C-alpha cells in the first residue's frame, strides 16, 4: 500500500515536472524544473533499491550535465528568448508522432512476458550491496560494451578539443 502510494507520487510528479520543463517561457526556469525532475528520478531509483544509480544520477546528471546546460543557457539573451515563439509551426505533427508511439508502447506492454529471474534477487543485492553487484557485472560480463562506451566518450572529448583549437 505504502509503496504504491510512493510510486504514484513519483509518477504523477514526474509527468507534471516534465510538462513544466517544456512549457516554461524562460529556458533557465526549464532547466531548474529539470533539476527537480532529476531528483525525483533519483528517488525512483532508491525505491528500486538501486542506491548507487540514485547517487550517480544526482552526481552526474544534476551535478555535472545540468550545470553545463545552465552555463550555456545563461549566456543566451533571455529577454529575446522570452518573447520568441514557443512552438514551431510543425507541432501538430510532433504531437501525432508522440501519440502514436504512446499507443505502440501501450499495446506492447500488455503483451510482455516476464523473463526468468536472474541471480540478482532483491535479497542477493541487499546482502552484497548494490554498488558491489553492479561493479562485478559491469567489469566482467559487460566489460566489452563498457569499454566501447568509454571509447565513444573519449572520441567526443578529442573531437571537441579539435573543433575548439581550429579557431585560434
Amino acid at each position: 500500500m505504502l509503496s504504491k502510494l510512493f510510486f504514484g507520487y513519483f509518477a504523477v510528479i514526474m509527468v507534471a515536472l516534465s510538462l513544466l520543463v517544456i512549457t516554461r517561457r524562460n529556458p533557465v526556469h526549464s532547466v531548474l524544473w529539470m533539476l527537480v525532475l532529476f531528483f525525483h528520478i533519483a528517488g525512483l531509483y532508491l525505491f528500486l533499491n538501486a542506491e548507487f544509480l540514485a547517487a550517480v544520477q544526482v552526481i552526474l546528471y544534476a551535478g555535472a550535465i545540468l550545470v553545463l546546460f545552465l552555463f550555456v543557457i545563461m549566456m543566451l539573451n533571455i529577454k529575446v528568448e522570452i518573447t520568441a515563439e514557443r512552438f514551431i509551426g510543425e507541432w501538430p505533427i510532433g504531437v501525432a508522432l508522440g501519440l502514436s508511439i504512446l499507443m505502440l508502447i501501450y499495446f506492447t506492454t500488455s503483451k510482455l512476458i516476464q523473463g526468468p529471474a536472474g541471480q540478482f534477487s532483491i535479497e542477493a543485492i541487499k546482502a552484497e550491496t548494490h554498488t558491489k553487484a553492479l561493479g562485478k557485472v559491469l567489469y566482467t560480463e559487460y566489460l566489452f560494451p563498457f569499454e566501447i562506451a568509454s571509447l565513444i566518450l573519449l572520441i567526443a572529448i578529442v573531437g571537441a578539443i579539435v573543433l575548439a583549437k581550429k579557431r585560434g
Partner: protein
Amino acid sequence: MNIFGLFDGLIGMQGSLALNILIIIVKIAVVVGITMLHVAYATYFERKVIGHMQVRLGPMRVGPHGILQPIADGIKLFFKEDIVPDGADKPVFKIAPIIPVFAALSSLAVIPFFEGFVIADINIGLLYILAMSSLGAYGIVMSGWSSNSKYSFLGGLRSSAQVISYEIAIGLSLVGVMIMAGSLSLNDIVKAQQQHWHGMYLIPQFIAYFVFLVAAFAETNRAPFDLPEAESELVAGYFVEYSGMRFALFYAAEYMGMIIMSSIAVVCFWGGWTMPPVITNAVPAIKMVPGIVWFVGKVYFHIFLYYWIRATLPRYRYDQLMALGWKVLIPLALANIVVTAIVKFMS
C-alpha cells in the same frame, strides 16, 4: 543499511514507529544545533586567529574578549533590510541562497561523529556526500544569474567553473580511500582504518590527502582560492546583490562547507573517532576517552588549518587556479588510484 532499509525499519516496527521518528528528530536537532553554534563561533575564531597572526587583537568589544561578537553579528544581519534588486528573477533569487545551506546540512546526515552515532548509516555515504556537494554549484549559478547584474553574473561564471573543476579532484582523491576500505559507508571506512597499525589512511594515502585538502579549499571558496569573493580586490562575486539574512545564508553555507570538508577529511584520512592502534596498544588508558573528543579535536585542527593558510598564502590568479586543478591535482589523483589499485590487487 540500505536507504530503504531505514524506511522499512520505520514501517516494520509499528509499535515503536513514533518513538523511532522521535529519536531521529532529536538526533537531527542536536546535530544541526551544534553545527550552527560551530558556524557562529567559527567566524569569531577566524577573526581572532587571523588577528593574532597579524599582531592584532581581533574582536574585543562585545563581551569579554569579544566572545559575544557572533551573536551581535547574527542579530544585526537578521534585522537588516532584505533588498531584492529591480529586474531580478525573484523566485530564483530567493531560492538560490537556500540551496547551499540545504546541501551542507543534508551532508551532515551521514557523517559518523562517534561509535554508533550517525543519523543515517547508508552504504553509499561517500557518494551521497559527493552528490550533495555537487549541488553547491547551483546556488552559485542561480544567484549569479538571477541578480540581473553584470558583476554577479561574471562572479557566478568564475566560481561555478572553479567549483565544478575541483569537484572532480575531490571525487577522484576519495577513490583511493574507497579502494582501500572496500566500502562507501563512512562507518566502514573508519573501521577499516583500525585494521592497520597506523589507524589512519593519511599515511598510505598521503597523495590523496594532499589532493583532497587542496581541492576542499577550492571547493569551499577559501583562501588561497577565494577568487569568487576576493574581498581585497573586488566587490565580492555572485552574491554582490544579496543583503541581510540572505547574504548571511551564503556566509553560513561557506562555514558549514568548511566543517563538512574537515569532517570528511577526518573520517576518510584521520581515522574518524578512533586513535591509531599503535598508540592505544601502548597506552591502553586512551581507550577510556570518548570518541567524540578525538573527532572534534581533529576537526578543529582542520578548521584551524583553513585560518592558518588564509593568513599565510597569497591568492592565486584565475589561470593558475585552473591549471593547478586540471594539470596537477586531477592527474595526481588518477595516478594515486592506479597505484592504490595495483597495491590492493597484489596483496
